[in-house]
């Protein structure tokens, strides 16, 4: 699986209130949530993000609330994947459960500017900055999480168990 998209670059500790402010949590409609995605961090994001774009962030992305609305909003906004130095644990778990692709990498951030084009090769675990012509390794996805993805997510694996 490969993604290619434009980078929206953000800093460290992007919390779930920035990803989707609680004032919009009176609905769980993905389209509604997508309209306000990243609103308090970057008011232009929701209206300008293109399908296939990539969010690139520093450490501890998704800290704070357990709201699954956060990965739902990002996915519904059309974002192909999130790359961060690290994730808050509930956000990490939620993303795998609901099917938002997320990757960890320490090096891409410092070598990439906002608006650069990244190509992500999931099978090879590689992230290429097409604009700058440099390739980086993503941290491998833990085997258990890979199996969860293969099973089609947590609920699908439960359905299969009967």
């Amino acid at each position, binding site marked *: 699986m490969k993604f290619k998209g434009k980078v929206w670059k953000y800093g460290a500790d992007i919390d779930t*209130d920035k990803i989707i402010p609680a004032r919009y949590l009176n609905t769980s409609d993905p389209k509604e949530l997508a309209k306000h995605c990243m609103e308090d961090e970057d008011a232009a994001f929701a209206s300008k993000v293109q399908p296939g774009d990539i969010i690139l962030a520093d450490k501890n992305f998704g800290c704070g*609330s357990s709201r699954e609305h956060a990965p739902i909003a990002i996915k519904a906004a059309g974002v192909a994947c999130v790359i961060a130095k690290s994730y808050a644990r509930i956000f990490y778990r939620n993303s795998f459960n609901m099917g938002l692709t997320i990757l960890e990498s320490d090096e891409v951030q410092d070598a990439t500017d906002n608006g650069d084009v990244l190509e992500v090769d999931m099978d090879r675990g590689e992230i290429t900055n097409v604009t700058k012509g440099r390739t980086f390794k993503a941290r491998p996805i833990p085997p258990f999480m890979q199996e969860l993805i293969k099973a089609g997510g947590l609920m699908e694996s*439960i359905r299969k168990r009967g």
Partner: protein
Amino acid sequence: MKPMTITEKILAKHAGVKEVTPGELINAKVDIALGNDITAPIAISEFRKAGAKKVFNKSKVVLVPDHFTPNKDIKSAAQVKILREFAKEQKLTYFFDGGDVGVEHALLPEKGIVVPGDVVIGADSHTCTYGALGAFSTGVGSTDLAAAMITGELWFKVPESMKFVFKGKLNKWVSGKDLILHVIGDVGVDGALYRSMEFTGKPIEKLSMDSRMAMCNMAIEAGAKSGIIAPDATTKEYMNKRAQRPYKFYESDKDAVYAEVREYDCAKIEPTVACPHLPENTKTVSQLKKITIDQVVIGSCTNGRLEDLQVAAKLLKGQKVSKNVRLIVIPATPFIYNEAMKLGYFDIFLKAGAVISPPTCGPCLGGHMGILAEGERALATTNRNFVGRMGDPKSEVYLANPAVAAASAIKGRIAHPDEVSK
């Protein structure tokens, strides 16, 4: 047998194995699975999509619509209706509505629904509160909640434990809230990422249950999976009249392995405030006395308990809230509300010029019942001060304990309780 921490012992027991090791993946039985009006609608939808007909146990799935209640708008009312109808259909033992609802993490311990030794998951990040009872409890998302509602179990990666040892005597006006703010200021908002935070030492043993809950409640603000305090006589006294089920005390072995051990001398910990826009931006109250404020909130799953209202009432007695400040007091549960009223705290709050809200999460997450305008600043006993947390993205939230909150409401600026204490 190998030495284990309290967290490892609880997880091993619930996974049906003799021992577990940090990093190991386990399937553990869940004693309580909790959802609220924001997170449960998605879980219920996933539950139905999976073709499930019945929850695994009707007295172990708990729904508490506390965030946007009393329903703040039509959409919120629709969300709560989903919970109400599901609770009725599934004949859930614990569904709280109307005058029975309280802030979930104050309500569940108070009602004895969570007990020591439990594994509790909740689709709310502050589910870690129940570590104060000596339970393993952690926040998850809605899909995880759906899975637990159906199967009664969930997968966990056994967390490494981090030990926080407190020594000495607490300074006046210092509570569990100050200890946890101090710790978060020390380790940072991801300083305990994926780990369990274990709080120990004589000062912790002397803490009230309300203060212990305030501490464990904010473990998530350091990125932790859970916070925990070994249960003792205080826990037993708290649980005796409340526990709905038999419970078990676990404790860490003396030679249990910790990823890290940190020691704190309580003599050096003063009333502490977290400045915008992260809980790790801590300073002492004394460093912030020039910061003027527009609103004070005393409430939430962190500090809306009786002890919190008591200390606020003590300071506000015979005093007036500053003309420049709106003080909003939110007792966390109907029981706390009633007790505070009987003890005369409401007279004190009303005479001082405060607003008393029914139990709700309300303004803590910028829901309703006290939203900030652009440029406004609040001091709150809540748990998060992220950008836009209590309203406009250009508003600010400072986090502190209830004594600091009461003193600040009187002074119209961040104030030390000694400044108003008679």
